């Protein structure tokens, strides 16, 4: 089973919602669409489902052109951020509804409904109406409806965004297992990098209607092809600073420099963009090779076991993530450290020149 997008784009009025996109998704895989709000995740899903017709390009299903085929004639299931169930009929009938419309026999329906209800832990709730269920159960019901159909393509559009933290963690752990067993193509849209990493599979990062990179989730995370992808696939976003290469040294601001080793050694002299993730900023202890910077501390945010520190380094805004709760004086200079092995080097257009040494080793 395979879904191929060939140069698919979507233009509405004078706005390009999706730029020409090539993407191949294989059966039995979990594919995460990762990007901020309005980056085009839902539009791309609608194009995949056949809810919208692409402005240009072709959609292939198992090599067969299905571009103009409406959603009714494709075998697709979709789950939304809102909990969408038929309000006036029972959970059992809700789950059975796609099969009833397909004209399956009563015995077959009963077996399929019980099976997917079991997987979604809805066994005791089949006689209830959707609105009698908790939010998590309502979404389980919607997921069971998507599951029971045995669709070739299952689209999950931020299905956990409206659930509370605890339920989200629980369902997030279950979803990949349950759906992978079904062997369909799964597409899961999310705004959270953490969610993409937890789900695994493949990730396509989206930015302003463009798929910036598509590959195995950990690989995309470790070696983002450009600064935009790195920004999208990091929460808080990746920090950047300008650096220059002179001879065998890479010069950072504040008089700090490091040896241009490995891939960097052969780089032409000139200016580059250095990027590093917030969790790699060291504050209270540091590795021996670390470079020292003295930005100004502007804001601190404490989230239980972690503290986000917002810094201003010669006009560039950095965010650092440190463990523990720290009470730091604002508007003072804070000494922070950065190990050269954590630094990604991009050219000034944002294309990756050299991934961080730690990511290559991993």
């Amino acid at each position, binding site marked *: 089973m395979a879904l191929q997008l060939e140069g698919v784009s979507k233009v509405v009025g004078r706005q390009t919602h999706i730029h020409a996109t090539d993407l191949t998704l294989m059966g039995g895989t979990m594919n995460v669409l990762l990007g901020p709000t309005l980056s085009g995740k839902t539009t791309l899903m609608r194009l995949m489902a056949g*809810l919208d017709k692409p402005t240009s390009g072709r959609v292939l299903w198992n090599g067969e052109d299905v571009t103009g085929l409406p959603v*009714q004639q494709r075998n697709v299931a*979709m789950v939304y951020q809102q909990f969408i169930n*038929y*309000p006036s009929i029972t959970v059992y009938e809700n789950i059975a*509804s796609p099969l009833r*419309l397909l004209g399956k026999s009563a015995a077959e329906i009963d077996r399929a409904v019980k099976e997917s209800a079991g997987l979604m832990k809805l066994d005791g709730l089949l006689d209830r109406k959707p*609105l009698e269920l908790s939010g998590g159960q309502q979404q389980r019901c919607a997921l069971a409806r998507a599951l029971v159909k045995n669709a070739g393509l299952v689209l999950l559009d931020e299905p956990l965004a409206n659930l509370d933290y605890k339920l989200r963690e629980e369902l997030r752990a279950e979803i990949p297992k349950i759906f992978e067993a079904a062997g369909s193509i799964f597409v899961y849209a999310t705004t959270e990098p953490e969610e993409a990493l937890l789900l695994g599979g493949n990730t396509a990062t989206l930015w302003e209607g463009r798929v910036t990179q598509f590959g195995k989730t950990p690989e995309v995370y470790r070696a983002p092809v450009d600064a935009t992808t790195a920004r999208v696939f990091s929460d808080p976003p990746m920090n950047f600073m300008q650096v220059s290469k002179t001879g065998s040294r890479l010069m950072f601001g504040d008089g700090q420099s490091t040896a241009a080793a490995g891939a960097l050694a052969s780089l032409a002299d000139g200016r580059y963009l250095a990027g590093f993730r917030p969790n790699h900023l060291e504050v209270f202890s540091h590795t021996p090779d670390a470079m020292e910077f003295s930005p100004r501390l502007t804001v601190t945010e404490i989230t239980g076991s972690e503290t986000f520190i917002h810094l201003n380094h010669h006009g560039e805004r950095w965010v650092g993530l440190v463990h523990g709760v720290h009470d730091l004086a604002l508007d003072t200079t804070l000494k922070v450290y950065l190990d050269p092995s954590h630094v990604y080097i991009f050219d000034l257009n944002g294309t990756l020149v050299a991934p961080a040494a730690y990511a290559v080793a991993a």
Partner: protein
Amino acid sequence: MEKTVNHKAWFLVLPVLVLVAFSAVVPLMTVVNYSVQDTFGNNEFFWAGLEWFDEMLNSQRMWDALGRQLAFSAIILAIEVPLGIFVALNMPKKGFWASVCLVLMALPLLIPWNVVGTIWQIFGRVDIGLLGYTLDKLGIPYNYTQDFFAAWATVIIMDVWHWTSLVALLAYAGLQSIPDAYYQATKIDQASRWAVFRFIELPKMQGVLMIAILLRFMDSFMIYTEPFVVTGGGPGNSTTFLSIDLVKMALGQFDLGPAAAFSIMYFLVILLISWVFYTVMTNLDKRETGR
């Protein structure tokens, strides 16, 4: 903790008490007062007990009017509710034409009752009215002043013209609150148009439809001005609804006692039917949502 006694609080409630007393309690008690007394003029009243109630309950005239009234309300609801829903379903969901439709829909609602009556009275006249003249020329017998059927048809069509918009606007508001994802989901499920209506739109509209039915019932059950202007209750008594009969009795014949007894029973009937409607529909709602 001991409650503090604060008599000043009474002053805060006083305005409401006074307002309710003058707007509801006093007029209602006046009616109650009339209903148990008899008068021969000169502002002299004699105790009559429940005599008027007894007379009214045994009056064929009142039962006939009640029958006509119930038939009228039933026909009105049976036409306006489905028609209103149908119109709402076919209105554009957004854009310029949605606004145009909303304004057009709201127009009949802004016209006063007696003006609506006058419009239709003239519209239906055989000599100068567009409708009456056209039907007459087409050879269709139509004369609302003489023909029972024509009179009822005119009154009903007039009410449908005047009030279907209300149902349509309420239903439209209900439809607008359904997230687009529901429609997408039904599309993906390959559901038919009827299934979308039956399982998504109707349940989601239920709340506003209940309000629409209650409003239309109460309003149609109290209808006075329009049939009074158009048919004056005729031909014969064929369009004499409860309130027309009541006014005839109270102001035309000046039978204050029977009219007062009649009013009280009329009021109780409206209250009873509204309560039944409300109870049935909230129970339906409970069954739907389990709350």
